[in-house]
């Protein structure tokens, strides 16, 4: 074959190769087949739901070693019906709220206020769905602080529970934290100080096999001989990369200013606790959004792998804020805020876990006049229908923004077509507390089924 024929075919071939390469690199394909992963949203028939209420606060009567229910909490429900109650140390405590067939949403809140010589403060907590695995951070086991983990088993099957306690120095070696049996329809209380003494920033990972349980942390504070601070924290189901706290009330300088100089009151200042349970360091961006508009402010923090760190939120203007935490790893978090009445001297703290981000219908049982905060963590605005009693309003929330509204006692129902998070902050004369709006447990309302 001659040079010319070789050159001709060669040049033609290389030109076609070049054209093909350019087409593959530069031109996106205009074709489409219309095939998408097959998934459907199926509504199951008549879903049951059980909300477990932890009942009264626990304390030690007459210096006894056992924890028993103290106080007298009241239970407010939105729809639902009372089921059985649980047993703690021989006393009936807590309740299980069951869904009534046909009711679309359900919520329950327990409130109690204390003002005696051992406990002072205001406690309000949502009743939550029992889980097999949950995380809760909060409290402290330093001098004067008591943190009790209450495990409530509202089912008729025993639960076998394993605990992991994390702290500022990482996972705590805690003998006795595995294999805890919580019998059917009963509660068990464990002091975190028994597992991790002198731990300023505990966080707990509760894993239950057998029955699903509801775990709460009860925090009490005594400064010297003066009690001041009670709260109960509900848990979250799993660490997440996006965590939302819709109602963080930064107390005014006027109210807490007088006690700030006292180091014993250091836990009144607002702070956020972050646990990184992964093996890689995480970088978290904490964005504080002023409620009802304004410029958000961000703080970046690095949370080392396996450690808990508390970050103070001291230098922010008083008022209602919403906090959105975004991180490159899933984290566990909780926020703390404080209350002090300079006139009565009552001091209270409020801890809360992040509100679940959910699209659908959520409800909160509101015990008394409080402030509702709704956060829109999405990248576009959304309209949420809020019904408070008989009043229904449509509220528009900008992208990444939040909105606060006063609400009356009773029920608050939120209907949204996109992801939102909501909670209420209740401030009374006896203290402050935050109650979250909980979502339906996974898969209940609409199950998205993908066909494999």
């Amino acid at each position, binding site marked *: *074959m001659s*040079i010319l024929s*070789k*050159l*001709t*075919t*060669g040049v*033609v*071939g*290389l*030109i*076609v*190769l*070049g054209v*093909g*390469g350019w*087409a*593959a*690199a530069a031109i*996106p*394909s205009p*074709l*489409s*087949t*219309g*095939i*998408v*992963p*097959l*998934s*459907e949203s*199926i*509504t*199951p*028939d*008549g*879903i*049951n*739901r*059980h909300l477990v209420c932890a009942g009264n606060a626990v304390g030690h009567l007459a210096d006894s070693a056992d924890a028993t229910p103290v106080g007298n909490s009241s239970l407010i429900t939105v729809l639902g019906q009372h089921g059985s109650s649980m047993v703690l140390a021989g006393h009936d405590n807590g309740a299980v709220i069951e869904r009534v*067939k046909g009711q679309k949403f359900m919520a329950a809140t327990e409130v109690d206020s204390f003002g005696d010589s051992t406990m002072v403060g205001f406690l309000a907590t949502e009743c939550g769905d029992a*889980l*097999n*695995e949950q995380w809760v951070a909060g409290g402290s086991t330093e001098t004067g602080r008591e943190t009790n983990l209450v495990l409530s088993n509202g089912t008729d099957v025993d639960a076998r529970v394993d605990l992991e306690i994390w702290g500022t120095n990482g996972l705590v070696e805690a003998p006795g934290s595995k294999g805890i049996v919580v019998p059917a329809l009963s509660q068990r209380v464990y002091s975190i100080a028994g597992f991790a003494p002198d731990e300023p920033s505990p966080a707990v990972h509760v*894993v*239950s*096999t057998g*029955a*699903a349980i509801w775990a709460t942390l009860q925090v009490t504070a005594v400064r010297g001989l003066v009690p001041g601070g009670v709260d109960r924290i509900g848990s979250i*189901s799993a660490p997440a990369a996006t965590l939302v706290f819709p109602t963080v009330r930064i107390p005014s300088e006027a109210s807490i200013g007088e006690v700030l100089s006292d180091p014993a009151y250091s836990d009144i200042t607002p702070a956020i606790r972050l646990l990184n349970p992964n093996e890689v360091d995480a970088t978290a961006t904490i964005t504080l959004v002023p409620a009802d508009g304004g410029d958000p402010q961000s703080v970046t923090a690095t949370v080392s792998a396996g450690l808990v760190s508390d970050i103070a939120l001291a230098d922010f203007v008083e008022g209602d804020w919403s906090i959105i935490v975004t991180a490159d790893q899933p984290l566990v978090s909780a926020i703390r805020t404080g209350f002090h009445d300079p006139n009565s001297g009552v001091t209270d703290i409020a801890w809360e876990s992040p509100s679940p981000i959910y699209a659908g219908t959520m409800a909160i049982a509101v015990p008394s006049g409080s402030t509702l905060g709704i956060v829109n963590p999405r990248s576009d605005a959304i309209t949420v229908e809020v019904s408070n009693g008989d009043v229904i309003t449509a509220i528009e929330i900008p992208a990444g923004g939040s909105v606060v509204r006063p609400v009356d006692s009773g029920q608050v129902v939120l209907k949204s077509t996109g992801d939102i998070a909501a909670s209420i902050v209740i401030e009374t004369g006896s203290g402050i507390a935050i109650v979250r709006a909980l979502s339906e*447990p*996974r*898969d*209940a309302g609409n*199950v*998205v*089924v*993908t*066909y*494999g």
Partner: protein
Amino acid sequence: MIRDSLAVVVVVRRHSERLSTLLQDLKSEGIRAGIVVANLSGDALPTDGDVLVIDGTITEPLGRAVGRAIESTDAETIWILRDDMGVRPGALAALTSVLDTSPSVGVVGPKVLDANAPAVILEMGESMTRSGYSVALAERELDQAQYDRVSDVLAVGEAGMLVRREVWDSVGGFDRALTSVDAALDFCYRARTAGWRVEVVPSAHVDARDSSWESFRGQTPRAQLQREISRTRAHRLLTQRPAFVAMFAAVGLGFSALVRGLGRFVQKREAPFAEFAGTSAAAFDLAALARARRNARRSRTQPIEGSRLFVPSSERARRRALERDELIAALEAADDDPRLSFGVAATWWMTFFVLAGLVLAGPLLGAEALAGGAALPLPSSIVEAWSAIGATWSEAAGGSTVAPDGFVAVVAMLASLTWWNPNALVIGIVALAVPLSFVAGYIGSGVLTTNSRTALIAGGAWALLPTLHIAVGEGRLPAILVHILLPFAVRALFGSTIVSIGWTSILIAVMWASVPSLAPILVLGVVLRVVTGSPAMVLALAPALALEWPRILESLSRPLTYFADRGFPAPSTSPTGFGVLTLWPSTVTMPFVDSSVATLIALAIVATAVVLVGIAVIVADNTRVGIFALVGGVALLEVAALSGVTLASANGAAVSLFTGPLLDVVWFGLVVGVAITLTSLRRTSTVLGPITVLTIGAVGIVPLTAVAMGSAPVHATTVRTLPAYVEAQTAIDHGGGTVVLTPTNDGLVVALERDGGVTLLDWAATAVTRTTPTPTERAIGELAANLVVESDADVIALAQESHVSFVLLDATVTAPEVSTISSHAGLVQVGETDRGILWRVDSAVEPDVTDRAPNLVYRLALGAVGVVALIAAVPTALPRRRRPVDDVVPLDEEVDDEHS
């Protein structure tokens, strides 16, 4: 004296013009009277008055003509001559002297020499083996007096045969059924059994031009002669054997002729069944057999004495071996194109790659089966695998009706290679992928070059390409098959014999059925070959179409979905934009560098390769480099058209094309072009070659070692995909279904598997390209949605409707779904298994045993086309026994690239 009573019969058939010469010869021999001419030619003959002329037709056998010719005389001796013969002086005298002196001799024959080459013996005496094959004692040999001591023979030929009249009459002349071939052999045989002796007289010389067949029928195709030879052999055998033995002999003859015919058919020889046709014709001509047997029985008085008269079959074998050697020598002399040979260096490299491949696939070697990525186990019994060929029901996607899938058929047929354990096929392919690719690259480069050094570089690079190793890491069996088979197919495509067409058709079928997106390239290749002078190559598309026609017909309404990769669809992360030009099927990763730097390095390598290919266009010794670049460009156009388009969906993931096979088409041209350019630099090619191969290995080191380091998705697994409890239960109750639930972030993935689980053969193309869920899937979806919440629905009734006996939750024990599923009455938790948590439906569930019949038309068509392709692919070329070497012994530096 014999001369006094001699009748000379001259049979004139085709050479009537030679008659006068022959008569002249006879006159000079002293024969004046007694000449009878049997004029079978139909022409008018110029004869003298004293010659008697008998007329006949041209199709009259010689024996019959002689018989009629001697009716009118009462001569005691008959001399049979033909019109193509010449008589040398002294021939008749020699012949008659033997008859005069030996009264026991009944038939004598002369030495027949070739009239065109007077020193060559045409024929002299005939014999046969004990099994009936006729053997000429001397056949087209130079006459060097080697046979001049021969006297007693079994038979002589008809040309120049001098026979006593009483022998002719008592034996009954030539057998009417034998027209020319072996007629004289049979006559002399019967004369021998009647007690007469037959002798050949070497001092009697006659000339002849034709053999008995040629003089009877003229020039005919070889097949007709073969047929006649086997017919006469069968006839003679069946005549000579006793009656009882003859029946079995007939069956034996027919059967062996059929078997030999099949052997010739497979070896692509011409007229393979001529022998069978002749044998059958003789066996069924019962009238002729009866007549011949009666005739023989009448004249038989004794068995033939003297085993020395028969030729041992070893002699026949020796002669056949000599013929074969001549044929081989002729073929070798004609075939002097230089060809790429698989030499010592290639064998060493292949051994190295076998070891390298075993090391790289180390973790997978002892596995029962492979899973992960796109890999799934195959059924554990070969019968189950075969029943998937042509199956119209697939258990994937909850069970749906599908068109028979070509890839399923290919894998099931390939699994026959490891019939004891079909999964060993997949593991074997993965373990041997590297050495097989080396051999493929080596052999495939034979299309463009004959230099073994070039081929070594090309093979080494082909074995280390990232397209192969990414496919191995992701368990993509279709892509691995294409990578191994593509160069073989290219080499076969450029052949021109039936064997090449057979191989091309098989390889194209396997590649087409595995990766349908290659179909346009394959068709383009075949069209190019058809257009450039090999029109029969269009048949190479037949097996592919036989595998794929149901799927093609089905996808006519949505043509793009035809190009979805076969097997289990696993998502791939194809590079986009200029990353495509790295010719990697997924994003480039290299150790120690960032992915953008790695992309730049890969782009640089491709650019270098293109430049070297440009040089190869000029340096190569044929124009095919340009054609390969062109086909590569077409493949890139197809990548441009199809990349990023969702072609299938499975497990909730949208799957687009795995571009590996299309990029392989481009890589092949690049690799061989680069190899050609490098070896054209003679001094440095010994260094540059291994460096190039090592560079390609180093650039692709991450996918190369992915399996060995355990970072590849594919891993060893057990053969079943469901827990052992389910497998054991469904072995007893076939058809029991298991709902498999996998929770995800925003929902769950639901699948239904029957019996021991879904295998690779269940994933038919129809199922993965569906756009709506099947009714079974909808039912399962509702069941699953009600299972994972505490709902009031009667999940047991839903399970019974869908024939579901088990629920498997693919999650840890602490997942929230565990308690919700357990809360439904009627589900008994079996426990935690290696696949998740298992529940059993605690009421009787009827197994789904609807029998889905496979598509029999598909199976039959595929079987027929497959058998034809396999027979065509059986090699017929006689092996080259010696390479043609130049007379000049080359020195090291002067090695001629054409022949090194």
